[in-house]
């Protein structure tokens, strides 16, 4: 089992969700984070203009079985892409076990 974490542009979320849906990954959680990276955003506030690398992003967390790893990653790579600095990252972490609370079952079948 793998945990796939993707940090993407908020404006690409809908796309990514559709792409995941197409490969039948309909199970994930997401939340909004602030990302620090290469991208800069121009701001102005009460006459001070400044640029910040703190940018709102969406964090998607999906736990998949090993055989779904690559196809999930590819789907995100494709759908979150704009080609401009700030498209985000995907990280893969090992996961040992998963449980579905409703049925108490564990293992692969509990993932969806």
């Amino acid at each position, binding site marked *: 089992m793998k945990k796939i974490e993707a940090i993407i542009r908020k*404006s690409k979320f809908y796309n990514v969700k559709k792409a995941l849906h197409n490969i039948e990954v309909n199970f994930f959680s997401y939340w909004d984070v602030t990302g620090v990276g290469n991208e800069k955003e121009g701001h102005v506030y009460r006459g001070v203009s400044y640029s910040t690398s703190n940018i709102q992003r969406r964090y998607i967390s999906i736990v998949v079985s090993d055989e779904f790893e690559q196809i999930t990653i590819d789907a995100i790579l494709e759908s979150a892409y704009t080609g401009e600095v700030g498209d985000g990252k995907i990280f893969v972490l090992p996961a040992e076990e998963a449980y579905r609370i409703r049925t108490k079952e564990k293992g692969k079948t509990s993932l969806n």
Partner: protein
Amino acid sequence: MELLTINNVWMMICTALVFFMHLGFSFLEIGLTRQKNTINILFKNFFVITMGLVVYCLVGFNLMYPGDFNLISSGILGFAGFGLEAPLIDGGLDLAYSEGYTYWTDFLFQGMFAATAATIVSGAVAERIKINSFMLFSVLYVGIVYPIVGSWKWGAGFLDSLGFYDFAGSTLVHSVGGWAALVIVYFLGARIGKFDKNGKSRAIPGHNIPLASAGVLILWLGWFGFNGGSVLSADPANTSLTLVTTCLASAAGGLSAAFISTMMYKKLDITMFMNGILGGLVGITAGADQMGPTSSILIGIIAGLVVVLSIRFIEKRKLDDPVGAIAVHLFCGIWGTLAVGIFGNMASFEQFIIQLSGVGVVGLFCVVSSVILILLIKKMCGLRVSEKEEKEGLDLAEHGMDAYADFRIE
């Protein structure tokens, strides 16, 4: 002198209340749209009220109340010159100007109305229009189109001679704004994601319903001035009747829309409650001084129905109006104008026909001028922000600011 003083006090208070409606509109609009476009909407609203007053001072007022229609006679077009020119007597203001208010009060009350018409547009086109194009459009609409239409009735032009009745502006203010909203929404297209591939409408929930609700209550309060002030004096019988009909129609409109939509969707939908209240208010506006309690309640009930159905109808036509401005201001504005021929003191088939003609003439003029203006502006600077900007939100793209940022710089 005492009478003028008291009348004028009432009119000034009503002016203040109509001014305050701009906060109501702001809250309503930002509440029903997404967070990423909040600054943009606030900026537009600030622009409309400030620009509105200045432009109405420079040209609008004298276009709307031209006196003798010196440009196209028969009550069609006149202009009394740029800027304001207060009538003086012995170096002081000539108080014989009217029994109900001074020259200055007249201007300010009317100026607040003018800005309202443009604000109506602002909500309907939210979340995707280029701010420069919107600003340009509203300058021209407040400066030219609104006052010309206004002159036809309130400036004693040809609609007035015809016997057309519009007490406080169901047509002259709300529909004028509503027609422009309709036209621009049509040319602008829907927000990304509003309709799926099959054209089915999807919900794009607003980000702050508490503020939207506050906006509705503030608008209701403002209507005390909007309708109450349209008596143009503090006449006790008329003003108080007007407030009663206004409040009853508003209450009935809200209840009816809430009831109908709950029947239809099985959930108590507060956004429909809100739009129903506003629909009731717009609906009573044309005849607020001509109705009794029962007819006001009926007008409100029907306005509530009109709102619920027209919101549906509009979305079926794939027109995307995030705050329901077209349903509330245009459809209920038309309903209210026609209702003068159906209910209350003036009800008669003849009057109904006159009201209908008035609706038609004004609608035609507004649609044609809006189309011309909007096509011109489209040519000059484009109408719609880029897809990227829309998705990231107008706040970032046009203002470089977040509505609820906090401690972000470190």
